[in-house]
């Protein structure tokens, strides 16, 4: 994974596979306390205690198509090499919380990447799922949900070129402004 946006896309795919209908992503970049935190909560099917223990093991997966599961293990590794932490909490039938912190100024901290593209593509591919995104920095907060965007565009399709540019532009300018 080259950047945090790819990691987020990856974790969101986990939530979708767990049949989540509500996924909340919070990215916090704090310059004063020098940390960057990714926090992803979903209301999917959740995992048993044994599964939570195994989840960050690269040789564990819930899939039957292959024998390795690298998503969470790569995120954990990337957080740890950037002087950060990784945590996973989950409850069967309730949902899952994934949290990864990085030292913001650490040279191993991956760049944020094109998070606006990730959000747009995730919303486009899963229009029946509510996605909430919040970006927090020392300058303030920006929060948006897919429900608000769908309300905004009405029955105009999301893939329409002008709408597509408007949505990614809206996300990008608001995030950039906070950085």
């Amino acid at each position: 994974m080259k950047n945090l946006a790819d990691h987020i896309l990856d974790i969101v795919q986990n939530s979708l596979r767990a049949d989540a209908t509500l996924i909340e992503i919070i990215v916090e970049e704090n310059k004063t306390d020098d940390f960057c935190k990714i926090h992803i909560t979903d209301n999917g099917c959740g995992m048993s205690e044994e599964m939570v223990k195994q989840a960050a093991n690269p040789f564990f997966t819930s899939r039957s198509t292959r024998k390795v599961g690298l998503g969470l293990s790569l995120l954990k590794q990337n957080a740890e090499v950037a002087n950060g932490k990784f945590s996973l909490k989950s409850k069967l039938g309730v949902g899952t919380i994934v949290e990864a912190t990085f030292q913001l100024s650490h040279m191993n901290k991956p760049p944020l990447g094109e998070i606006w593209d990730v959000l747009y593509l995730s919303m486009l591919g899963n229009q029946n799922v509510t996605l909430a995104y919040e970006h927090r920095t020392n300058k303030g907060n920006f929060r948006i949900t897919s429900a608000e965007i769908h309300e905004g565009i009405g029955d105009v399709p999301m893939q329409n070129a002008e709408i597509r540019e408007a949505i990614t532009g809206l996300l990008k300018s608001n995030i950039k402004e906070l950085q």
Partner: protein
Amino acid sequence: MSKITSLADLKRLKDEVQSKIKLRENSDNPEQMVQVKVGMATCGIASGAREIMKYFVEELEQQAVDALVTQTGCMGYCYAEPTVEVILPRREPVVFGFVNKTKAQEIIDLYIKKGEMIDGIIPITFRTIDE
């Protein structure tokens, strides 16, 4: 239109766009539409599936193909990522492997628009007849 920075701007743009476009008749029955599913598990993302999905969304829209581009999980062809599954109306699904932008363009131009079989279908030993 000027830069979109708020939901109010987005709504204004929507009204502008809505008057220009004709609503797609098929959007309620996906069986009648071309479906493009991009493999978007860890293996796919690490191989650049995000760029490929974006490319399909942009190109299909530009070429006015009525298509539904979505994400799917790992199909077990991690060695061939990015993989793309294309379902043409009333046809069997076909999975393409090692899809880069050139391949994506070929899939759109030849398979999606003309229905011609092309190389790169998984299993990758598949070759079109003229080879």
